[in-house]
């Protein structure tokens, strides 16, 4: 009896606290409502359709998928690709991060940019580049080596492209981890007699292991949910994300498409759970006392040069791809007619200006919304306690784990009828942008808030300020870098979205990436290159602008993600 009355009063206490602060109360309700509507409801719609293909409940679609080798092969393909890419990308990312944190190679600033550059590119830009370079009419394969091969299509090409696209994910995660390892530890290991290699394998590597694992998982999910690259360069290599799209839009088999998308959801959410609940405990607190020293170079000269070379090669590769796209914009007919021309600019302007405008417009609108919402959620999750907090935290992060394909299909199904008739409007696109990207803002915000002592905000409240005022005047200014990091990412991801967007573009609101995709598919590579080029310029321009206006450094904006 004692225990239950205590429990009751605790719950009452939470509710009580909530009702005392009406602002918080309303905010929580509003946010929960939004999250349920825009994250859970579409998934529900997709799942429902996949389980009721003919109006009544049935596993028919799922059993069909699992009993037909066409589909099971696709699933196997996706997984295989994911495993290979995750491993390679984590390797590349680790080398980069290690070289820049522990080995102290030259050209640090330059390599730091290279480490994240692929992230702010159009989603399948590298696939396009690879075709221009290594396709049947590729600059390198056809012109230089005189080969006539379509060998780049399929698994090989996909691996190359996905590794280049995704190693920044591993790089950023591992940078954070490696930087967090107290340099004294490696110095100490050497002080106790460990040679450099021994010190690496017995101290650095074990401590980095949770980060390595986390990176691997992230890239694995990224590869599984990738849509743009497989569609362009996948060739005969079927993957799940494309198959779901084909079923849904191409074949018109909506239930099966939905089922495939739901299947895609399983590994991603699984990984999300592992990341969130299991990995957290494994992170080592490495800084015990006061660690003051700069790290002495824990890497021998030969290794240092080897690392430098590796990073240089990868960077040059990346640059090559960019240059190729730019080159492709000016060539009459890549692989056939090399005369320089501006005709593709004219064509793209004609066909794509309106789309570019609309894409930028919607991205710009959604960006501050995403950033602000992310900060608000982070704030109430870290600083306040209220019933349903766990659910809110979970939901706001979950949407990151949901593959774009599932989101796209879900939104099409969910928002096509009253009371939520959103399809065809700008609003549905904005909703996708906001709720797909809000987790980044939330996570950044949580990390930033945890650095700020709650004393500061308590003192503000103590002096009479309510929640909003404190948030505006005290909290927000202090988490500025995180806010702008969230905003930057929101914009970049809105501009480079494809896998969800492709289901939702309408006559009135098209998206530049869909246009680029269409041009690429019909091999109008000149136009595709120009449009990609335009996209890159817009995105980089935005990032540059943010950095200039806020005075934040690149490392602050791209420092902590996931």
């Amino acid at each position, binding site marked *: 009896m004692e225990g239950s009355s205590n429990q009751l009063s605790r719950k009452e206490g939470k509710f009580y606290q909530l009702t005392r602060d009406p602002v918080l109360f309303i905010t929580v309700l509003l946010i929960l409502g939004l999250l349920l509507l825009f994250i859970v409801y579409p998934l529900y719609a997709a799942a429902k359709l996949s389980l009721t293909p003919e109006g009544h409940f049935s596993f028919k679609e799922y059993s069909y998928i699992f009993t037909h080798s066409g589909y099971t092969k696709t699933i196997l393909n996706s997984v295989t690709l994911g495993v290979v890419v995750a491993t390679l990308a984590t390797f590349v990312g680790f080398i980069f991060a290690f070289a820049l944190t522990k080995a102290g190679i030259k050209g640090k600033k330059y390599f730091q940019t290279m480490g994240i550059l692929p992230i702010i590119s159009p989603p399948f830009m590298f696939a396009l580049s690879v075709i221009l370079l290594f396709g049947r009419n590729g600059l390198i394969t056809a012109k230089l080596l005189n080969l006539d091969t379509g060998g780049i299509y399929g698994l090989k090409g996909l691996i190359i492209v996905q590794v280049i696209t995704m190693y920044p994910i591993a790089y950023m995660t591992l940078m954070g981890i490696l930087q967090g390892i107290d340099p004294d530890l490696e110095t100490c290991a050497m002080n106790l007699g460990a040679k450099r290699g021994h010190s690496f394998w017995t101290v650095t590597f074990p401590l980095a292991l949770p980060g390595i694992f986390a990176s691997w998982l992230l890239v694995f999910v990224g590869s599984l949910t990738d849509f743009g690259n497989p569609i362009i360069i996948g060739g005969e290599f079927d993957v799940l994300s494309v198959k779901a799209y*084909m079923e849904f839009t191409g074949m018109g088999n909506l239930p099966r498409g939905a089922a495939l998308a739901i299947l895609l959801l399983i590994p991603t959410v699984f990984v999300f759970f592992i990341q969130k609940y299991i990995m957290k405990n494994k992170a080592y607190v490495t800084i015990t006392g006061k660690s003051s020293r700069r790290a002495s170079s824990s890497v021998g000269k030969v290794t240092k040069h080897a690392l430098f070379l590796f990073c240089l090669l990868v960077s040059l590769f990346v640059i090559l791809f960019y240059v190729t796209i730019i080159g492709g914009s000016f060539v009459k007919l890549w692989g*056939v007619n090399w005369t320089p021309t501006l005709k593709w600019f004219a064509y793209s302007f004609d066909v794509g200006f309106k789309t570019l405008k609309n894409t930028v417009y919607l991205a710009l609108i959604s960006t501050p919304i995403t950033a602000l919402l992310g900060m608000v959620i982070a704030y109430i999750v870290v600083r306040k306690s209220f019933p349903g907090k766990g659910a809110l935290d979970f939901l706001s992060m979950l949407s990151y784990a949901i593959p774009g394909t599932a989101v796209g299909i879900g939104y099409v199904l969910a928002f096509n009828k009253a009371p939520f008739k959103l399809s065809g409007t700008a609003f549905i696109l904005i909703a996708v942008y906001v709720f797909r990207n809000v987790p980044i803002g939330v996570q950044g915000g949580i990390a930033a808030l945890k650095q700020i002592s709650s004393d500061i905000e308590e003192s503000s409240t103590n002096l009479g300020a309510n929640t909003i005022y404190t948030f505006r005047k005290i909290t927000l200014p202090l988490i500025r870098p995180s806010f702008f990091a969230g905003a930057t990412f929101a914009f970049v991801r809105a501009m480079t979205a494809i896998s969800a967007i492709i289901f939702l573009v309408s006559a009135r609101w098209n998206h530049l990436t869909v246009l680029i995709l269409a041009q690429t598919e*019909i091999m109008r590579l000149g136009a595709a290159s120009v449009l990609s080029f335009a996209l890159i310029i817009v995105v980089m321009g935005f990032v540059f602008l943010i950095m200039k206006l806020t005075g934040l450094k690149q490392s602050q904006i791209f420092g902590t993600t996931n």
Partner: protein
Amino acid sequence: MKKTLLIFMMLVLIISTGLFAAGSSEKEQRITAYTTLDEELAQKVFKAYTAETGVQVDWVRLSTGEAVARIEAEKANPQASIWFGGVGIGHIQAKQKGLTMQYDSPAAKMPAQFRDKDHYWSGIYAGALCFESNTNKLAKYGLKAPTSWAEIISPEYKGQVQMANPGSSGTAYNALATLVQIFGEDKAFDMLKKLDANITQYTRSGSAPGKNASIGETTIAIGYSHDGVKLVNEGYPLKITFPSEGTGYEVASISLIKNGPADELEAAKKLYDWGLGETAAKIYATTFVVPFVDVPLAKGAVSIKNLNVINQDDAWAAENKTRLVEKWNQVINGEAKTVKKK
């Protein structure tokens, strides 16, 4: 710092509002259209329409299969009022699914086989399936351009052919249905399996194989002759051949979408009428198709009247599409060698 933030936000809002305002004004009449016409052609067509009538057309290009799927997915609340272009089989499918509406257009004067007897869809042009071969590549590999279905499935063309995916592309399904109608279902699927061995990639869009052949990304493409002729005219080293056993053709059509935006209905009807008219036909003709309205043809355009085309039953093809495509998926993925026809 805070001021900067405020200024930045203001800028963002101003710029975006400006961009938006510059682009549209809500007062004028607009039509939302799904089109399967090639982007360039669609741009020309709708631009001309706007120039003539002042009505803005918001369009997005979808392949035939994608258009049907999209219209179906939206059927509770259709976003577009008209589907302009796209292989006739798709329009028949849409009619069968109850997605389109009747409209007896005064401009529908083409022969009966090229329009729906219940006035759901009307054809704008016909184009026949053909083989498009890159002459340079043929020379390089010592091959001749194929002149029959029997030839193109033979092992000598291994790895040299491209076709679209029948699931997503009306062009490719047209080819599939043609084979079934000529050779019967069992033999046709046998041939498709053999053809698969020669195919490097099934593209998403129907016109991609032709474009690929023109630039040498593939040697031979199965596509529509008007696309091929267009490329030849642009100077690409393509040779167009037709299968001797007979070939199929598309009847590109227009349909009004059922329950589309109410305020667009009248304008959509007018667009429909215009699409069947002479001005429009002249624009189509620039892409080497043969419109049903009698207009001067572009040089090299091949009319189906002059070809060995089969007696095509599009209604049958539409009815059996899901079944046949599913079967095709199974056969290609090796699950069933041949499946007996029901």
